[in-house]
């Protein structure tokens, strides 16, 4: 990317004051990136940003509390940072935010779906519009827009909302249109028994690894998650679909009004369960009732942690 050098330069400048700067670098194959923890000058060169920079690095911030941390953020990631600031889980003074104009990241599941098995990936070239993957000696070509994550298509904040250093030109003001939740609407066209059946079928393959939770930047309970505790004892450790679904509801409810829909939960899921939809549903209702969007204003209070004496948009049942 064109401003990658500029970014490296600004990290180089800031690094002496920081314990670590978190960015991305290449991973086990050319089709994947991985979070990159820059501690020494020589680590900077490996930094790579682009459509493979899928990970929301804000997830690491609460665990680095007390350290001076630099973090490279996409627009969507910056909303998680804001949410963490809002909840006082990180201190603003301790973090240095590097923003850049994000043009979208890929959804690996979509690539997998489009290409199927490709074998050894030898190279991956991502231009503005297309993706060319060479694997097992064969070239595969895809439209970038076909494999961009859903959230990128409806992205309203391509530039970090909050940043200390911004490289490149901002792509402009936030796009005002609200997220339209198209997929959600389609899902809600299903009959109620079909929806019920859908979740049971999808959650059935859950292996209870809790990657959805561990990758979530706002699952700040970490080692003390209600999923595994006996006091309170919300869930059993049995392999049953009821507890798996219940956990997803717990996750969605605990994120209500806090979730920025970064999609890490779903991305992290090794068995591709569409868990993000539950959070989107929460968010949609939160938006409709409270006119609230998480992760845009560090001074706000999440709606479920506050109230109004008169709620304009809650109509109670008339008996």
């Amino acid at each position, binding site marked *: 990317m064109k401003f990658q050098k500029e970014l490296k330069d600004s990290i180089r400048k800031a690094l002496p004051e920081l314990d*670590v700067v978190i960015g991305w670098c290449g*991973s*086990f*194959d050319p089709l*994947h*990136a*991985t*979070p*990159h*923890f820059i*501690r020494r000058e020589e680590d900077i060169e490996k930094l790579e940003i682009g459509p493979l920079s899928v*990970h929301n690095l804000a*997830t*690491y911030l609460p665990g680095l509390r007390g350290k001076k941390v630099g973090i490279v953020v996409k627009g969507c990631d910056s909303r998680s940072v804001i949410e963490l600031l809002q909840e006082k889980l990180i201190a603003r003074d301790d973090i240095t935010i590097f923003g850049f104009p994000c043009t979208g990241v890929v959804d690996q*599941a979509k690539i*997998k*779906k489009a290409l*199927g*098995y490709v*074998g*050894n*990936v030898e190279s991956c070239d991502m231009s503005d519009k297309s993706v060319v993957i060479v694997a*097992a000696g064969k070239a595969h070509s895809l439209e970038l827009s076909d494999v961009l994550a859903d959230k990128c298509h409806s992205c309203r904040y391509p530039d970090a909302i909050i940043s200390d250093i911004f490289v490149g030109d901002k792509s402009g003001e936030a796009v005002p249109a609200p997220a339209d939740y198209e997929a959600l609407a389609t899902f809600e066209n299903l009959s109620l028994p079909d929806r019920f059946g859908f979740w049971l079928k*999808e959650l059935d*393959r859950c*292996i*209870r*690894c*809790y*990657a959805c*939770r*561990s*990758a979530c930047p706002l699952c700040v309970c*970490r*080692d003390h998650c209600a999923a*595994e505790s*006996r006091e309170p004892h919300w869930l*059993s*450790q*049995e*392999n*049953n679909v009821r507890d798996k679904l219940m956990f997803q509801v717990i996750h969605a409810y605990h994120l209500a009004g806090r979730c920025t829909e970064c999609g*890490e939960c779903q*991305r*992290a899921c*090794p*068995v*591709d*369960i*569409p868990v993000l939809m539950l959070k989107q549903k929460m968010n949609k209702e939160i938006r409709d009732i409270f006119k609230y969007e998480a992760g845009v204003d560090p001074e706000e209070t999440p709606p479920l942690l506050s109230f109004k004496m008169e709620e304009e948009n809650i109509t109670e049942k008339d008996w």
Partner: protein
Amino acid sequence: MALVKYLKSTDLKSWLAELAQENRVFAPRYEGEAVIFAPFDPEQEIFIKYAATAPPKKTVFPQSERLVDFMYSKDPEDLSRIKIEAQEVLPQGTAVVFGGRPCDVRGFTMFDRVYMAEEATDIYYKARRDNTSFITLACDATENTCFCHWVNSSPSDPTGSDVLAIPVEGGFLLKAVSDRGETLLTSQLLSAGENRVEEGERVCKEVADSLSQAPDLANSPKKLLEVFDNIEFWQDVSAKCLSCGTCTYLCPTCYCFNITDETQGMKGSRIRSWDNCMSALFTMEASGHNPRPTKAHRLKNRVGHKFSYYPDLHDGVISCCGCGRCIKSCPAGVDIREIVLKAIAFEPTVVEG
């Protein structure tokens, strides 16, 4: 020479249906963008284009199982006298698993050394292990994450399997690798396979040759112990780890478990479920003390167990089958190969003077 048969691809489902008459049959299925092992269903496509997302570990070591059921009963004469009956719940029936890969099935041999040790045998595991046959599919291609050849295995390693199925033109070459395997190959749907043995060998060799040179891991047990106390090393390699359980739960050789009790009214069960050494709760003591308080400590144990402690106890066998799932499915891209190589290459900096 062992029994060799040929199965046409088009007969695969029929064959599995035959096997399903006497056994529970598991085969890989495509769900979401994941491939998982599920009970064979003739309506569903069997997905064997590439290795399953989750290995067939659960067929022998289920995600959770009831170990003991207990029931309370009261003495009607004196309600405070409660009798507790504890009853073991042993697995029943036989199973056939089709479509596991050599790495997946070899993983069970890591279990065997621990669960079927001479002095203490886990009868639940043993009951399933003894009654489950594996028709393993040799790999005809590899991925970037594959490294079975680093850990003394290969894409057509039959260790732990009963039948090795090698993809050949129009179908599979089925090689019995155990006595039990021979009994599986009696179907009328199978034809003689001797004439395709050579083709099968060629397929296997081609794939094996496509793998890059494997590094020597013989030193790993020793080197990992050397870096044990180097907390910076472990913090460095675990920095991006999210402490979730994806790697362990998808790992064909990870065998740790938890035991928890659940009750409802006058009865309950003691349940064994997969556990995850990357979780803080794994070693957290009731007092709150935790010998592995950070993800650095926990990742150290995970890598250490596979590449040092286990080999130390079991004749140098590395408790990793090289399937690469922990790398491929890790949400943060932690690469265990990198960590092991880094440990092997690690030279303590000599402080001068």
